[in-house]
């Protein structure tokens, strides 16, 4: 398409950095390691605050408002409290695996941030397989969840972990196919090039891809309405039922940093990343991440939890076929009208999305407006 530029060369990107930027290997690595860890921890605190206050407002109550102004220090208070709690290991459990599971869950989620651009060229490692790296690394934490569920020697944990594997395996497919249709537009797998190619945010050119990615991203990180593996009303707390103290806090941290990473990837792939007028790029990036997360909180308070069979059917019978159709429509558009006007393309794509979603959901109508997937 005319609106998609070819990826700039690495040399051109270096020139856009400020001249006083430290270019040495160790200084670059040191700066970004500190930035990433600080970013993750601060964003997680912001997300916890936003979720609890936002949910409180949506449920017509106040939410936490005692610690600090507007309850802003509530996550800090929680962290200190949970640090001082006793660590309990179940007597029948597998102690080593029980201890190791939080590491296997949290370390990969931290690793993904290495390829997320905060500004032009401002990322730890500009891998040329960036988005593929994200897909690969993000699957590892499912292993940690299963380790936690298995080592706890608790039936609720085991069922929760099994459901988690089922959900991750199913929703991986529409997720990666939706990413492939973005890659078609950019012609590059590097996260930085994907942002540079978005003169128009891809949410307008890929509305169906965005929808599929958002739904399967929510399911992948087990946000409500897809939080079957920790369904409080049936599995009590799912896989982290036998965890307490700092190890529980690690799972909590990992859960929210997964929410940060999926919001950051949605921002990078579909909302134009750090691009935006007036404000500095990193601020745009953070604002967009918070907007995406607010929509997740919104869906959580609006929709009831789905059943396990509905969860699997939504992935395999609804999202996956639509993702494949979206991929081919994008490919045909790219080859047939490479010079089409962007605004025409946007209108056509939104119309195609509406028609496809409506037609495909006809398959699952039972009568009286009931839907069974």
């Amino acid at each position, binding site marked *: 398409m005319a609106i998609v530029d070819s990826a700039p060369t690495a040399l051109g990107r270096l020139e856009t950095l400020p001249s006083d930027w430290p270019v040495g290997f160790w200084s670059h*690595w040191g700066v970004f390691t500190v930035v990433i860890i600080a970013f993750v921890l601060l964003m997680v605190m912001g997300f916890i605050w936003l979720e609890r206050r936002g949910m409180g407002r949506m449920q017509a109550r106040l939410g936490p408002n005692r610690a600090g102004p507007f309850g802003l220090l509530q996550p800090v208070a929680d962290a200190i409290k949970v640090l001082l709690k006793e660590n309990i290991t179940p007597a029948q459990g597998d102690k080593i695996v029980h201890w190791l599971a939080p590491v296997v869950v949290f370390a990969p989620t931290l690793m993904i941030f*290495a390829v997320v651009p905060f500004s032009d060229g401002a990322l730890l490692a500009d891998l040329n397989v960036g988005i593929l790296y994200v897909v690969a690394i993000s699957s590892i934490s499912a292993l940690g969840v299963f380790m936690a569920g298995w080592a706890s020697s608790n039936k609720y944990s085991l069922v929760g972990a099994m459901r988690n594997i089922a959900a991750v395996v199913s929703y991986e497919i529409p997720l990666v196919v939706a990413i492939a249709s973005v890659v078609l537009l950019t012609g590059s797998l590097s996260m930085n090039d994907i942002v540079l190619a978005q003169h128009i945010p891809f949410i307008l050119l890929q509305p169906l891809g965005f929808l599929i990615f958002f739904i399967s991203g929510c399911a992948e990180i087990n946000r409500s309405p897809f939080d079957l593996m920790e369904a409080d009303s049936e599995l*009590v707390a799912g896989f982290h039922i036998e965890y307490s103290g*700092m190890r529980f806090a690690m799972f909590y941290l990992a859960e929210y940093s997964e929410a940060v990473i999926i919001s950051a990837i949605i921002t990078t792939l579909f909302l134009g990343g750090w691009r935006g007028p007036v404000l500095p790029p990193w601020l745009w990036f953070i604002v967009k991440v918070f907007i995406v997360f607010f929509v997740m909180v919104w869906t959580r308070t609006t929709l009831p939890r789905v059943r396990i069979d509905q969860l699997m059917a939504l992935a*395999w019978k609804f999202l*996956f076929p639509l993702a494949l159709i979206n991929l081919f429509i994008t490919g045909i558009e790219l080859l047939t009208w490479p010079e089409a006007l962007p605004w025409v393309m946007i209108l056509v794509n939104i119309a195609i999305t509406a028609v496809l979603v409506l037609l495909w959901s006809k398959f699952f109508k039972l009568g009286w407006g009931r839907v069974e997937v």
Partner: protein
Amino acid sequence: MLTNYGYIGLFLVVAIVFTVSTLLLPVTLRFLKIIPHKPSPIKSSTFECGMETIGKTWVQFNFRYYFYALMFLVIDVMVVFLYPWAVDLKQLGRFGFIGMFIFIFIIVIGYIYAWRKKVLEWK
């Protein structure tokens, strides 16, 4: 390019060290007598809503998503071929597009067969 993987490798070390040291913090605090450590048989028994657990947890378990896992494997391998194609579609042109269409069409036949055979139902 290799520099970037160097960054990733070093960051992996940092991520693991960060996580492990956060988990070792309460262990240190326990030796300083700040965190309590009073295990008892009741406390470290398996949680089960007030009842006692019957039998072992690690039994043979019907995990129900065997077919889903097989489908996942097939389609994930398809996706591996999809990514290089997606990066280079503009150069490959219509020939490349039709080639990938035929490849995916073959897998979609299998997918429709699986759907018809009710493999995609969670029973």
